[in-house]
Structures are given as structure tokens and as C-alpha cells.
């Protein structure tokens, strides 16, 4: 019987997962700032355990167009991970990385898509790195895939994975600011055994 039950989460476990989220998101923000050569301030991430019908709302509506970067995780823990940000924020990041404005806000070019994937790669990679060095667990991320669509549709993917385990989804919201405010969301989806491994590695 796994120790972790997302529907009846123990406060101590929740705090640990929260803290892991904070550290991962912090690391990711640092990488982002280095990659884009800009100063990025980060607010304290918000970690929430939400019901499925609440997630879309929490991100600003199910129909809001977002960019979702999704990858699989293997190694000592297995599962998947997603990083989501509003399409507008994605455009800002891409134009910063490429040093020129996005050609068409509604349709990113192939080059811009590729840049966005790379941003996603670095953000999720540094998030997982933080998690890995903290727990001493081996974590190997796959190459990420990108999807630009309605928040609800993108979220259906991690939601279904959480749905296999229970009726809640663990969402980490992180806001970074430079000139404009950029909001990003992390969703880490280890399977239940991996939750136990993570907590076990931390001596819980």
C-alpha cells in the first residue's frame, strides 16, 4: 500500500511536496534568467492540490490558449512532467531568446516552436535536476513535446494520469517577472510508488 494518497494527503507530505516544488521552480527560474540573460524575479510559488474541475479555472479558464511542454521521466522515479505557460508569455520568452519579435502571435514559425521547445527543455530539465540532487535519485527526462491549445485540452493529459491514482491534481504555480509578468505552471506526475521513493529518499 503506497504511503501517499493524493485524495487524503497528510499535511507533512504535502509540505514536503510543496517544498520540492519551490526548490524545483526556483532552480528553473535561475536557468531561465541565465539563458535569456535577463534578471528574473520570482515570487514564492503557489502549490495547490486541486480537484480536476478546478485546474482550468486556476489557470485563468479552460479556453485560455497556452503552450504546454510535456515529457516523460524515467530512472529511479517514473512518471511525467508538464510545464505550462500562457501563449502570450511563451511569445515573450521566444522573442527574448531569439532577439527579435515573434513574427505572428497566432502562429509561431517552426523556428520559434523549436526555440520554445528548447526553453521548455531547459526549464523542466533544471527543475528535475534540483529534484534529483535533493533526493539523490536518478531522474532521466525524455525529449519534450510541445502543444499549443486550450488549457483544458492540454491539462487533460496530466489530469488523466492523476485520474488513474485519484481525484486530485498537484499544481505548482510560479510567477516570474522581468518587465512583464510571466506566469508558468509546473505539474509533476510521478506514479504513486515514485512519490513514496521521493519521500523515502528525504527520510520520511
Amino acid at each position, binding site marked *: 500500500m503506497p504511503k501517499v494518497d493524493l*485524495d487524503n494527503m497528510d499535511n507533512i507530505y504535502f509540505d514536503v511536496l510543496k517544498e520540492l516544488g519551490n526548490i524545483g521552480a526556483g532552480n528553473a527560474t535561475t536557468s531561465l534568467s541565465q539563458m535569456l540573460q535577463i534578471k528574473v524575479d520570482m515570487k514564492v510559488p503557489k502549490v495547490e492540490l486541486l480537484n*480536476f*474541475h*478546478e*485546474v*482550468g479555472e486556476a489557470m485563468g*479558464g*479552460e*479556453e485560455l*490558449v497556452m503552450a*504546454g511542454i*510535456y515529457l*516523460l521521466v524515467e530512472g529511479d522515479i517514473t512518471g*511525467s512532467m508538464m510545464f505550462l505557460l500562457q501563449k502570450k508569455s511563451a511569445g515573450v520568452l521566444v522573442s527574448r531568446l531569439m532577439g527579435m519579435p515573434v513574427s505572428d502571435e*497566432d*502562429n509561431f514559425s517552426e523556428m520559434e516552436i523549436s526555440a520554445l521547445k528548447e526553453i521548455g527543455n531547459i526549464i523542466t530539465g533544471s527543475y528535475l535536476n534540483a529534484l534529483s540532487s535533493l533526493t539523490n535519485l536518478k531522474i532521466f527526462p*525524455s525529449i519534450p*513535446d510541445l*502543444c*499549443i*491549445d*486550450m*488549457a*483544458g*485540452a*492540454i*491539462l*487533460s*493529459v496530466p*489530469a*488523466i*494520469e492523476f*485520474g*488513474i*491514482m*485519484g*481525484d486530485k491534481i498537484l499544481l505548482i504555480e510560479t510567477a516570474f517577472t522581468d518587465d512583464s509578468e510571466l506566469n508558468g505552471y509546473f505539474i509533476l506526475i510521478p506514479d504513486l510508488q515514485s512519490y513514496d521513493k521521493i519521500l523515502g529518499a528525504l527520510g520520511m
Partner: protein
Amino acid sequence: MSKMIKVGMADLKLCISPDSITTLGLGSCVGIALRDPKTGVGGLAHIMLPDSTKIRNNANVAKFADTGIMELIKQMEKAGAVKSRIVAKIAGGAQMFAFQNKSDMAGIGQRNVECTKLKLKELRIPILAEDTGLNYGRTVEFYPENGDFIIKSVGKPIKKI
């Protein structure tokens, strides 16, 4: 005044004409719209997973194709619908990312659609129209009054099936 009822993810609701019912941003999930044309009693289920018998934690009946359809029909019958008259329209079941190839997630959208069809067939409920599969999200609106099922996607024209 008619109103539009909203159905969330892993949720289902009853809708009686002239009201309408919607669910936003279906991805790999499937939206199942049922209606008894004679009474105007309808409903919409937004299911996430194909089969409740494969999952230990299956208390939420609206989460699964099999139990979701059963529950919605039960509620419709209570509201005056007759099962032999009920017809269905379905949408969703997309594959949002190219490589969802992990064993328990492989083709989950497609399996959601298949399981939905299987359950409806078992119950002898005809599927009048569907807009399923491919790789994009869908918002649906259903009007039990005339059976119109409106599908909206990003960067695509509005569809009526």
C-alpha cells in the same frame, strides 16, 4: 430564460430544454451528449478514463466512460427521459502530444472513444454524430431542444454536428 450549464472535467450534468450545456477544452477526454428528443431531456458527461473496472480508485462515476454513461442515463430517466429514445453525439478523444506512449497512457484518447462507443452500443443508444480523435482540443455546446452539438477549436471554424 434559458441558461447554459457548465460541466467540468470528470463531471456530468443533466440539462433540460430550452437550457443548453457546455464543457470547455476537451482534450483526450470525451464529451458524451445524450438526449431524448421527445421530452427534451438531455445531459452531458465529460469523462477522462475508459474503464472503471481497471482502476481501484473509482468512486467518481463521472470520471469513466462506462459508469458515466450509466449515471447520466439514470439521471435522465428520473427527469422523464425514456431510454429507448435516447440518442448520442460524442466529441473529443484527441491525442494532444505525439509521444504519449507510456503503457497506461498509450492512445488514451482513442481508448476513451472506443470504450464510449462500446458502452453506448451495449445500451443500444445510437450515435448520431461524432467529432473525435486528431490532435486538438474542443469546446462543445449541446442543445437538447434540437440536438445541435457545436464544436469550437483554436484556429478552426466552428462546427455543428
